């Protein structure tokens, strides 16, 4: 009896936990194909947060790159500029597009050349300490 209660307790605990921990999904994760000489590349995709609380992307890493930062391209006074973002919030129930000319993952120093079609796992880090590995595909053009 006590065991049943324990199981029921654990199940009840698990259900809401699973709902609230619904992870951020990345639709169409891709890395733009770059010349083999390129020391930097860029990663894109649609970050969707189906959960009921805001999520904040704070960093990323991958064995395929020396370092990864969150950057944003923006236009000011007719100049294209880039700035580093310390974090990228993804509102509950909302989405943020990493896209050319906007926020993107800046991928520094590829450890080896990445040909078209290569699949690159990147670990995304969120502010609550959660991590999530997303496989990005190297493409010459945006998907779709």
């Amino acid at each position: 009896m006590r065991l049943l209660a324990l199981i029921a307790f654990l199940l009840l605990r698990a259900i809401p936990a699973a709902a609230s921990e619904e992870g951020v999904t990345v639709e169409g994760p891709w890395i733009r194909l770059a010349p083999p000489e390129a020391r930097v590349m860029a990663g894109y995709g649609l970050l969707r947060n189906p959960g009921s609380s805001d999520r904040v992307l704070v960093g990323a890493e991958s064995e395929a790159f020396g370092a990864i930062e969150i950057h944003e391209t923006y236009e000011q006074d007719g100049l294209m500029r880039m700035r580093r973002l310390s974090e990228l919030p993804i509102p509950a129930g909302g989405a943020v597009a990493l896209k050319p000319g906007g926020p993107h993952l800046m991928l520094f120093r590829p450890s080896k050349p990445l040909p078209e079609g290569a699949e690159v796992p990147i670990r995304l880090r969120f502010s609550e300490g959660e991590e999530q590995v997303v496989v990005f595909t190297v493409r010459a053009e945006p998907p779709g």
Partner: protein
Amino acid sequence: MSIRIIAVILAAAAAAAIGFFLAGGGRLGPGASLTPEGLKATRLYPTPRPLPEFTLERPDGRPLTLADWRGRWNLVFIGFTHCPDICPVALGTLRDIERRFPPERAPQVTFISVDPERDRGETLERYVGFFNPRFLAATGDHDSLQRLTRALGLVYLHRPTEDGYEVDHSASIVIVDPQGRLVGAVPPPHDPAVVAADLARLMGG
């Protein structure tokens, strides 16, 4: 209240008239041979501007001068190879534009690196050649680069960051005619089909 509305309408009409006059003036000005009619994305200068002589260095050490632009229609873009987002997109777009023309009519594309500290020799050549081996690449000292980019109506600057520097730059595609004159520029974002159509119209085809 109604007087103010009338004043606003009059001001708007005056502004429209001035705009119309300016557009017409551009078309009818002396030396103008190109008209903005039908151009979808290109901003034309009222009259083509002759460019000053310049000397940049190509990756193989040969010079790039205004003579290399004469006799062909040219598309010019400034950037740098440590640019992961804007420059690869622009070079891909330029490749796409170039492919839309038969070889004998295709524009010549020049990528000018405004980051000579990092972009010299083979790095620049292979980077640009990756997109299209026919593309010209060049860079130079900052005096030469500043003079030329200014003449092209473009701007760049090196901005220090915590771990180095970032290069801010104009992202317009500049159009230079076969006489080596600055004709116009296409601000981003660029649709290859639209830019190619504008260019074909400017070429008079």
